[in-house]
């Protein structure tokens, strides 16, 4: 795009989360700044899972954190339900933020090594208070731990280093659930895990979403994983949106050259037409992204128009939006 645009938003369906034209930039000194996210818009319907797909450095993690206001984006708006998050003062923001929860990539690093599982999981209640007796509270914690597949009696007094990576990730999920969130933002939750454990966590997330009525944003670099868990996939490149596509159609209908390239790079995926031609060029620096379409330096289909004019997201098939001047559409 990779371009911007809001054609893919669905305001009429009352989304749980709406992000409008979000920009995140970090100054790196000498007047330069990293353009991490440039004009990202997205929405999330109740019960939906939005997959965000991209390589490292595409701004997907930054976007996830900016949605949580950690830190707040440079510009743009984030709405959780009816509530505008940008510009809130400290306490209301902390309160509103707790309606969204985050699962991070490194499960051991995201748990305080000095605390026990029971304290980690009840931390949210300790901050916001719990209406009910001590027994009820403990009952709730045990129930939640069981829900994420941990035996409360076994892990109750353990510290994170006594647990495996998969178990730590389960504790993180339990901790998030205790906040009774509406939206769960998962930032590469399985990429640090072993293959056999990865499947357990993916299944768990899927089950949890049903059981707790969550909406989910799932950030990852693995196309197959994203396809498996999402309803809708958004492909990012250098801080901009390339394509928004219902996940069931990503392998057959992807129209953006970059999405095609990602599909082609799945090992053993067979030779898609874009596999090697675009390969040798490196990812451009986010300090000074290319003009026009940011993908043009690696795109085999790039023309002069791509350098001059930034493509806008437009609907190419029902529910599929592409920001490209030359989308690959076989009729």
């Amino acid at each position, binding site marked *: 795009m990779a371009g911007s645009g809001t054609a893919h938003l669905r305001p009429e369906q009352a989304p749980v989360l709406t992000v409008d034209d979000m920009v995140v930039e970090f100054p790196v000194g000498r007047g330069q700044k990293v353009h991490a996210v440039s004009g990202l818009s997205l929405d999330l319907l109740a019960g939906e899972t939005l997959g965000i797909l991209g390589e490292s450095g595409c701004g997907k993690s930054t976007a996830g*954190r900016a949605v*949580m206001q*950690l830190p707040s984006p440079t510009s743009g708006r984030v709405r959780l339900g009816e509530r505008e998050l940008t510009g809130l003062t400290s306490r209301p923001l*902390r*309160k509103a*933020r*707790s309606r*969204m*929860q*985050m699962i*991070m*990539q*490194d499960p051991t*690093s*995201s*748990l*305080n*090594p*000095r*605390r026990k599982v029971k304290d980690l999981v009840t*931390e*949210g209640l300790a*901050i*916001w208070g719990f209406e009910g007796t001590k027994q009820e509270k403990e009952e709730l914690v045990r129930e939640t731990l069981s829900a994420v597949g941990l035996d409360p009696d076994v892990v109750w007094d353990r510290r994170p280093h006594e647990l495996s990576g998969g178990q730590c990730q389960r504790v*993180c999920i339990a*901790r998030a659930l205790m*906040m009774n969130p509406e939206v769960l933002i998962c930032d590469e939750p399985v990429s640090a895990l072993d293959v056999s454990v990865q499947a357990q966590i993916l299944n768990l997330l899927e089950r949890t979403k049903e059981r707790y009525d969550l909406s989910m944003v799932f950030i990852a670099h693995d196309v197959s994983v994203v396809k498996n868990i999402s309803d809708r996939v958004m492909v990012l490149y250098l801080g901009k949106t390339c394509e928004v596509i219902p996940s069931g159609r990503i392998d057959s209908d992807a129209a953006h050259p970059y999405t095609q390239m990602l599909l082609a790079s799945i090992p053993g995926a067979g030779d898609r037409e874009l596999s090697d031609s675009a390969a040798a060029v490196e990812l451009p620096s986010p300090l000074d992204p290319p003009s026009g379409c940011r993908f043009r330096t690696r795109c085999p289909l790039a023309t002069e128009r791509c350098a001059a004019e930034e493509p806008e997201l437009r609907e190419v098939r029902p529910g599929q939006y592409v920001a490209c001047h030359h989308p690959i559409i076989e009729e």
Partner: protein
Amino acid sequence: MLMPRKNPVGSKLSAPRLGGVGAGLVVAGIVLLVVGWSAPLLLFLKAVVFLVGVIVLAQGLSRVVWAARGTRPDILLWLCCGWLVLLTVVALLAPLLPLGEHVDVVKALDAPIYQTPELLSEYPLGTNNYGLDMLARSIYGARTSLVIALSAVAVGTVVGGSIGVVAGFLRSGVDSVIGILTNALLAVPPLVLLIALATVLEPKLRNVALALALLTIPSMIRLARANTIAFAQREFVLAARAMGATRLRIMVRELVPNVVLPIFSMMVVMISVLIVAEASLSFLGFGVQAPEPTWGNMIAEAEGGTMEEYPHIVLVPGVFLFLTVFSFNLLGEKAQKRWDPRSAKL
């Protein structure tokens, strides 16, 4: 390193053989200890023999336990802990113990002067030029050293640690100001700063302790700050913020418990540094003044030719000083290896 390594792996020694070697070393060590204390040797040689005896004994014991239990214990660590506990207890109870006179010259008028150490005599560690008992003086010296070092470290750690955590967590303006203040304090070499302070402060126990606390503060700030910054970048802090924790809560509940451990290790190392600093200061005549005994001013008594004639005047307080500093150093290193692997390097 003396400290036994965890793993008896590469060793091809069988258990009985190991036990044999160990037992041999134990016997040798004990013999050396006894010889070191009682044989009619030059005192300097005695001290060397004594120390070698301790090392050999430690190695021997470690091997015996290793052979018997299969895991190799850290005998040296236990010896160090033992020494420190013994020293502390003895120092605490000093007024109750049947010790010789340590400070009042008049009371020691009829005592022999420059008595050489004799294990079973009235003066096991000898006497000084006034006939004061060296054992009693060393133990009272330990009192002074430990009180000064411990109180200075406690004050320095509490002040420096909290400033460091706040600076590391808040960053930006506060951090820069504190950084410059810290650097300014560090810019004057410790001993020079102490001497300079000594020109203006009375050489009293409290003042020495305060001056030493001032020395502790900048290093504690740096350590606490660096660790706070490192932990603040960990994802669990992000997770706490995502749950809506306030900044105060994050500092107190998430950061402090993690920062405390490296600070504690640093404290132990700092104690040994301050004991040396206090001793150096007293040696130069700027610390607690004679005849009130400290290890530093006891060693200073040996200056000007006394040392060659009566080496025990240096060696007795010297060995006390060495063993104590060594023990704190060792403890500190173990603690740092366990809790603060990054600064363990320095």
